[in-house]
Structure formats: C-alpha cells, structure tokens
C-alpha cells in the first residue's frame, strides 16, 4: 500500500525527491536530519488545501448538495491514509526527516550562513509530528463525516463556507505541526486562529456567536504576540529558525541546565520559552487567556469537537513538547507551565461543576484537561523522565474521548432542536434510536473520569505519577488528584442527568420556531425498560410537547462516527501497555543527545541516588501506587455524582443536588458565574481600553481633525476677513487708493532720505 500511495503522490506531482528511506543518523549524539519521503509527506499537508479549493469551486458554482462534505471527507481521508503510509515508511519516525515543498523565505544578506533568514515550506517529520498528524487527520476525517449530517440543514452557501474553513483549518494545523521552521509554525498558528474565528462565527447572524468569535480571535492574538516575540528572540539568539539547525544549538544549554549549571544559560535564552508559553496559553486556553473557549461553544458542534477539543487547543501543548529542551534550559519556564496548568485545571473543574449547559461543561472540561497536559509537560525533569510521555499520551487519548463527548452532545443538540440544558433533558439513552449515542457517551465519560483500564485512566495516571515522582512537584500532584475527583463528578453529573434516569425532554428553540415553552408537564419518571419504549415514547412525546415535537434520532453518519470514536477510545488504551506513545515521545528528535547526558548522569550518580531522588506519594513509589489512588478518587467522584444526580430523581429539572445547594451559600452561584473572571477582564482591560479609545477619538476629532480643519479654515477665514474691504462702494476704493498713494510717498520719502 505504501508504494501505491507513493506512486499516487508522485503522480500528483508533489515532491521531487525519490522515495528512498531516510539515511540513518550517524552517531548517537548527531542530529543529522535527512530527507523524509516527500511524496508521502507533502500530500498530508496539501490534500486538505486541495479540498478547500474544490469546495471553493463548489461555492462558486453554487452547489446545493452535500458534495463539499464528500470532497472534504475524501481529501482528509486521503491525508490520513498518507499519514499512515508515512508512519509505516519511516518506521514511526525513528529518524527525523525533512520534506521540502518549495522555497519560501530565503533571504541572505551576507556570505556566511549566519547572515541569512531561511524559512521554507519544508516539513519536519519525526515521531512527535507523526503522532500528532495521526489523530489530527483521523479525527478531522471522522468529524467531517459527522458534520455532513449535522450541518445538513444548512446545505447551500453555508455548507460550502463551513467545509472550506474546515479544510483550511486542517491545512493550517498541518503546517503548524509539520512545519520545519518556526515561521511555518507561526503561519499555521495564525491560520488555525483564523479558521477558528471563521467557524465559531459560522452563525454570523447571531450576535453572541459573532462576539464569541471575536473574543476567541483577540485572545489568541494576545498569545500570538508572545509567540512572535519568542520567535524573533530565537532568531536573534540563535540566528536561525529551522528546527534541524536549532536542536544542536539548544542542546548545550539544556545539558548545562540539567547538570545544574543554570548560570551558563543566557537570560535571553531562558526568556524564549517563557514567551512561547504565552502563546501556548493563548492557543490552549490556560489562565489567563482561557475565557474564550467556553464562549467558543457558540460555533457548531463539529467545530467544537475538532478545533476546541482535539486539535487547535493542543497546538500549545505541541509547541511546548517540541521545544522541551529549551524549556528545560530555562529556570522559570517549566514551573510556570506546570503551575498555571494545574491551577487552570482546578479552576475550570470548579466552574464546570456549576454549569447547566452540557456543551459548556465539556468546554470547561477541555480547559481542565489541557491544564492537565501542561502540568504533565511541566513536571518533566531529569530524575523523572526525559520526555513528557504522560502529557503526549494524554493529548492523544483526550483527543479521542473529548471528540466523542462533544459529538454526543452535538447529537443531543441536533436531535432536540438545540436543547442543551441538563435540567430539561433526561433519559436520552433509553429513547429509541439513541442507543449508540448513549453507549458512546458512556465510554467517553468513563475515559474522562478516569475509570480503570480506560485510555483516559492510563494517560491521566501517567501524569499523576510523574508529578509525584519529583518531590518538588508533589503539591501539583495533590491538586491534580483533587481535580481528577472533581472531573469525575461533573462528568457523570452530565451523564446521570441527561442520558439516564426518567425519560423527559423539552426541545430547544432552534429550527422549530417555538418560543421556548418548556414547562409542559413532566415525564412519569419511572425507570422503564427499553422494550416498552414505543408506547412510552408516544406518551412521552404527547406529554412533553403536545405531540408536535419528536426527537430527531441521529442518522447513519453520526452513529457511525460515534461508534468509530468510541471504539478508538477503547483501543487507545492499548497504547499504554505497549508503550507505543511513550516510545514515540522518546523518539522525538529533540531528545537526541540528551539521552547520552541522562545515561552519563545516571551512571555518575548511581542507581541508589537516582531512586532517592524520586518523590513518594503516601510513602509509596508513585509508579506502583498511582493506579489505585486515581481509581479510588475516580470512583468517589462517580459515586457522589450518582448520589446527587441519579438516585431518586424523578424529573429532569430537580435532583438530590438541589437540596444541597442552600448549604453551600453563594459559592455555587459564583462558580456558575465563572468566578466573575469575564467581568473582571471587562473592568480591568476592556473598560479602560474603551475609555482610552474614547479619549483618542476625542483627541483625533479635536486635534487631528481640528488641525486639518484649521488649515481649511485659514483661507476661508482670511477671505472672510478680507472680503469686507471690497465694499463695492466707490468712496472706499478711492480712500484706499489715496491711502495707498500716501504709503508710496512715505516709502519714497524714507527711501530718498535726505534732510527733512
């Protein structure tokens, strides 16, 4: 299959180089980067772009069918196939390679290579890249298929617009992940931000969607400033932007830092990762730039699933993972990453606990899980491990189960005319046609909550273990553990409220023109078995809405995608015992050379010292005990959720949790209002800016316009002053003539001088 695909690639005229394997690296410490098979690598990037162009053609030809969807699915599917082929061809990216598409920026101002700025359209293929591209292209294909049914009501110009932005997004993400220089990464970074804006604001007639799109874009831009400064600083410090040339330059600094000689690393070099972190926080929604992600749920659910759960928000994680040696060379960068990630995880979990909109809850859980990932990156250290395997694994698994969760919520939204409030829905899994959705949701929730032997369980576990292994980061470990419990709680709150329990539904107000009449009677609340569904359903439908509304069960596309994702979530768990992801992470070329240091260091300090440097949790070795502790915490969370939200629940509206609320006072309300962070930003950032802009407007109108108008007034004013001299009356003219004669005589008298 690889050869066939390779021939297709060559036939498509992409890539010039031969289909040879990359030459093996010479020497353990060498990071010589060879050629990657371009014929396989370039289509991954450019097939989505081709899809965009074709969809654009559809738009121009005013196609009104689902053709754009099939085009996009086909292109993305082909890209996924090429990714698989590339993976197989390069043996999992054991040796990094560069696939060159064309020269882009090749600016030299001097003879030596130091006096040049090179940033070409080249793609860097190594294990990290391959891992990312696998789930990016895979998920993109599946979600495109899902969207073909989800967005079916919008067939026409909206459909074309959606898929064009979708394809452009995947192209940008590919540039970001596969780019071989920081500038191409930045191009992709901006591109995904743009597509996020386009897609969040898809329903551009809705003011809240437009506002959310703007918010997302602007907050991303704030982060992008940090990234841009970091890139510029990189160029200033190292003289190049290409990864292949950067790694050898970063290596000495990382070694120095890891060996304890931090003073040898220049301050500016230590600053670069901090700047990168700012960008990462913007893109991956960490404190303080996370507030855009919940609002981004205004976009269609496929968008939320792809962009804001699985791919775009992991770009920040990718950046940190890619440049981890640089982070290790800096004194502040990794602690910042770790602590901010942890705090974000906790904060988002607390907010998620108090929301009622299920998509919002999922959004906050995304923020929280991203916090986990950053924490996982941050706790990487010499003693624990060389590579952030936990974080990378969590990215991988999170992509699958979060996409599953979002798509299930989307199915619910699609089927119940936009109803997302968990107080208005109940027992969806028992309804006819919603079985697959229910199962997929359950699998996703189990993953998110960290139920034993799910993929999410393993990945979260790795992070927790790494956190506890380093004694300095034990505190992070405890906070993350607490957050895991909260995560389990709120995840199953959703599941127990919406998907199980008494069947009841109140449709939302989309597509059916109902003005939100929701309080039509309650369901009977008895737990009925599935065999009585038909009669129950009819009665239910009648009671819930006088028989006018029927829930729209998902079609084949949605069901298929959900099934595939659910299965994939389960299969991903296999990756843990096989150490597949960990190996990929280790193989990432950035860590070349460092392993030698590690080996030397371990040999130097000896095994006992190495063990002593490990932290401990509750007196036990973290790696052994973590399984049980996190399983216990997860079970506690699920149990509490059961007690509060399922046991004895009769209606959709209320549950046992409501009795608990008065005891907690105003705290739940604060949490529901997102701890007023948005209001804080409004007061501290937006209002002053607004004031300043008013001032500037005033200055502009008065000063700048005034100055210009003054220049306009001057001739008119002068004219106005001089005009009365033309009185039209003969005598005035004569008087002035006489006066003029007098002046002339006076001048003559003065000029002639002489005796008076």
């Amino acid at each position, binding site marked *: 299959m690889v050869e066939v695909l390779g021939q297709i690639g060559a036939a498509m005229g992409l890539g010039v180089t031969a289909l040879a394997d990359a030459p093996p690296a010479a020497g353990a410490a060498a990071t010589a980067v060879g050629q990657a098979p371009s014929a396989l690598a370039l289509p991954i990037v450019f097939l989505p772009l081709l899809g965009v162009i074709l969809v654009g053609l559809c738009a121009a030809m005013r196609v009104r069918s689902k053709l754009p969807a099939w085009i996009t699915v086909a292109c993305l599917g082909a890209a996924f196939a090429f990714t698989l082929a590339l993976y197989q061809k390069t043996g999992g990216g054991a040796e990094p390679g560069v696939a060159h598409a064309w020269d882009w920026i090749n600016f030299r101002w001097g003879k030596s290579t130091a006096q040049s700025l090179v940033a070409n359209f080249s793609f860097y293929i190594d294990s990290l890249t391959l891992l990312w591209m696998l789930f990016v292209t895979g998920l993109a294909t599946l979600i495109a298929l899902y969207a073909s049914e989800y967005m079916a009501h919008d067939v026409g110009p909206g459909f074309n617009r959606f898929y064009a932005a979708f394809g452009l997004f995947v192209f940008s993400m590919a540039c970001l992940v596969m780019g071989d220089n920081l500038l191409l990464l930045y191009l992709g970074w901006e591109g995904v931000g743009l597509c996020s804006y386009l897609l969040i604001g898809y329903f551009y007639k809705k003011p809240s969607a437009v506002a959310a799109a703007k918010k997302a874009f602007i907050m991303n831009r704030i982060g992008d400033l940090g990234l841009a400064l970091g890139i510029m600083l990189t160029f200033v410090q190292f003289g190049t932007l290409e990864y292949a040339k950067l790694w050898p330059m970063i290596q000495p600094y990382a070694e120095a830092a890891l060996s304890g000689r931090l003073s040898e690393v220049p301050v500016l070099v230590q600053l670069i990762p901090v700047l990168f972190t700012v960008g990462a926080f913007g893109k991956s929604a960490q404190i303080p730039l996370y507030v855009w992600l919940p609002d981004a749920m205004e976009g269609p659910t496929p968008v939320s699933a792809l962009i804001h759960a699985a791919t775009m928000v992991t770009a920040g994680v990718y950046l940190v993972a890619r440049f981890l040696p640089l982070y290790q060379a800096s004194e502040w960068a990794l602690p910042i990453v770790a602590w901010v990630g942890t705090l974000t995880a906790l904060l988002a979990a607390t907010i998620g606990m108090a929301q009622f909109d299920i998509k919002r809850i999922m959004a906050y859980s995304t923020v929280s899980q991203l916090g986990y990932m950053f924490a996982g990156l941050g706790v990487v250290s010499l003693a624990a491990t060389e590579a952030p395997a936990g974080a990378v694994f969590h990215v991988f698994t999170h992509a699958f189960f979060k996409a599953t969760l979002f798509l299930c919520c989307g199915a619910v939204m699609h089927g119940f005319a936009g109803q997302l409030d968990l107080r208005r829905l109940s027992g969806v899994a028992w309804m006819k046609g919603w079985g697959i959705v229910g199962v997929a949701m359950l699998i996703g929730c189990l993953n998110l909550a960290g139920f034993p032997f799910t993929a999410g369980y393993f990945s979260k576990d790795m992070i927790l273990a790494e956190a506890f292994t380093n004694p300095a980061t034990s505190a992070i470990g405890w906070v993350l553990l607490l957050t895991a419990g909260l995560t389990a709680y709120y995840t199953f709150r959703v599941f127990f409220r919406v998907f199980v329990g008494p069947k009841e539904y109140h449709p939302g107000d989309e597509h059916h023109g109902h003005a939100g009449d929701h309080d039509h009677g309650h369901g009977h609340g008895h737990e009925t078995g599935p065999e009585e569904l038909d009669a129950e359903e009819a009665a239910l439908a009648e009671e819930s809405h006088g028989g006018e509304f029927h829930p729209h069960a998902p079609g084949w596309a949605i069901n298929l995608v959900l099934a595939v994702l659910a299965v994939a979530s389960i299969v991903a768990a296999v990756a843990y015992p096989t150490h597949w992801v960990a190996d990929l992470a280790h193989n990432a070329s950035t860590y070349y050379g460092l392993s030698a240091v590690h080996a030397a260091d371990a040999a130097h300090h000896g095994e006992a010292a190495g063990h002593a440097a490990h932290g401990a949790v509750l007196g036990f070795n973290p790696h052994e005990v973590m399984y049980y502790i996190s399983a216990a915490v997860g079970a506690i969370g699920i149990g509490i959720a059961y007690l509060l939200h399922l046991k004895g629940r009769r209606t959709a509206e209320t549950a046992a949790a409501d009795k608990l609320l008065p005891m907690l006072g105003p705290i739940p309300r604060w949490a529901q209002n997102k701890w007023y962070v948005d209001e804080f930003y409004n007061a501290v950032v937006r209002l002053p800016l607004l004031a300043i802009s008013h001032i500037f407007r005033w200055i502009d109108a008065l000063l700048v316009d005034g100055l210009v108008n003054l220049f306009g007034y001057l001739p008119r004013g002068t004219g106005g002053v001089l*005009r*009365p*001299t*033309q*009185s*039209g*009356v*003969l*005598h005035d003219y*004569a*008087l002035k003539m*006489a006066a003029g004669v007098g002046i002339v005589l006076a001048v003559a008298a003065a000029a002639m001088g002489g005796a008076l």
Partner: protein
Amino acid sequence: MTELSMLAQADFPAVMPQVTLYHYLLVSAVMFVLGVVGFVTRRNLIIMFLCTELMFQAAGLALIGFSRFHLNYTGQAFVIFVLTIAAAEAAMALALVVLLFRRKETLDASTWSELKG
C-alpha cells in the same frame, strides 16, 4: 501790457526764488488734497467729479509754477493740454452721470455697490 509784465518782475522775467516756488507748490498740494478728500467724502456723483476737476486745477497750478521757475513755456503748453483733457473728461463723465442718474433716480454713489465682495 507792460505794466502787468512789470508786476511779473520782468524786464526779462527774473529767476524765481525757490521759496516762492515752494509757496505755489504748497498751495497746489493743499488744493489737490482738498480735492482728494472731497472725492472720498462726498456722495453726490456730480460733486465727486467736481472734486476731480479740483485736482486738475491743482496740477495745473503746479505746472505753471514750474514753468515760471524754469523760465520756459513747456509747463504752460502742458496746461493747455490738461485743460483739453479735462474738458473731454468732463463731457464724458457728465454724460455717464446722467445715464446713471436715469438708472437709479438718485445721484448717491453708494447705491452702486454691485462690486461688493
């Protein structure tokens, strides 16, 4: 005849002292300025033209004075021409004044202000 010539200090006309010339010039200047002031001040069109005639007068006086001073007849010949021109101008001006008067039924010069800016 000769007695009058006596008055004019002839047997042959003697050279006029400069001071004397200055007297005549002063009178001429004052009369000229009176004409200017009158032109600028009066609103009656005809009186305005009369003031221009006054200015001609003054000029003529100065010319005759200089002619006497330089002991030649150029100034006097020039005054003849000035007289001629004054006559021609008076004729034209008065014809125009009559036309203007017919137009507006008034001799007020300030009613003609179409050139007002």
